């Protein structure tokens, strides 16, 4: 019985593709308006990276702010998963007042966020204290 080498190679490639493709299946494609109508108030940010692996995996693309309910600061950050596989991270917002003191918020806790492959998503929070003028967004790798 003769085996066609080309057929064998094709079969092997097809089998390899079947194994590899499901790994990319969670990637997210998006469609949005070409000319955005939104005019976000972007925040100029300062970043401190202590986990290079995480920084290479999940990137903060931008941070924008708004004022809600008259005098409460709302912060929104846009996060992007730079990898093809789903990633889970933890994040937490902290607030700081005009004099640089931390403003305790009873419900600000570490939250878990799962990003699909190459997905971009937004996280936001509202300062419950009108004294909050600054924020710190902490991001860490999720370790169950």
């Amino acid at each position, binding site marked *: 019985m003769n085996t066609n080498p080309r057929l064998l190679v094709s079969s092997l490639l097809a089998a390899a593709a079947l194994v590899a493709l499901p790994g990319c299946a969670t990637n997210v494609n998006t469609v949005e308006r070409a000319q955005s109508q939104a005019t976000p108030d972007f925040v100029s940010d300062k970043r401190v990276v202590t986990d290079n692996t995480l920084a290479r995996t999940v990137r903060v693309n931008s941070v924008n702010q708004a004022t*809600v*309910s*008259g005098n*409460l600061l*709302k912060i929104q950050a846009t996060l992007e998963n730079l990898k093809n596989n789903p990633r889970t991270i*933890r994040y937490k917002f902290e607030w700081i007042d005009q004099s640089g003191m931390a403003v305790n*918020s*009873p*419900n*600000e*806790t*570490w*939250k878990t966020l799962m990003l699909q492959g190459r997905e971009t998503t937004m996280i*936001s*929070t*509202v300062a*419950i*204290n*009108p004294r909050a003028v600054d924020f710190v967004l902490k991001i*860490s790798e999720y*370790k*169950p």
Partner: protein
Amino acid sequence: MTTSTTSLKTALLVAVLAPAALVFTGCSTNQVRNVDSKGPQALNTSGINSQDWANAADQLVGSLLSSGALDKAPAQPAVLAVDRVINNTQAQVDTDLLIKKIRVALSQTGKVAITNTMGLGERAVVASEAAELDELTTGKKAKVVAPHYTLYAKLIQQSDRINSVTQNTYSFQMSLISVKSGLTVWEDEREIAKQSKKAVMGW
């Protein structure tokens, strides 16, 4: 001869038992550590844990404040009465784990004053009794501020299972109702889904 043999046996026995005693003591020691209930070390269970309560409260408060519904109150701060909290989960939980967090957060904004003369719990009973006592002693009718809004919440649990994987989805629903009109001026829902996998071997 006999004495030296006995001494040797005793020494051997001590040499074997002493390390064993140390090892077994190590096994029975309870290791306790303090963790941040809102931190990454908090235990993640299939039920609603401390982080889930805080997370749900934070998101619901953020949604309520962003909606601007409280800014439309006839007077500031808006007076709020906490209505029923229905727990339709399988867990026996104190709903104050959610409601108290929301009350604290809303109070800190300075945009809400929460009345205790009506609504949930023993506080309302004590407040009513105090008002009655004040009426008796002063002879003046107590002036109770009527709420502008009532807050109503419901907790729901949905369990799904496929093979050895169980998913518990907890829904935290909340509505703000205008007392004057009876209309819902804000409502939102937050869900937390938890999957747990049962071990193939085990009890």
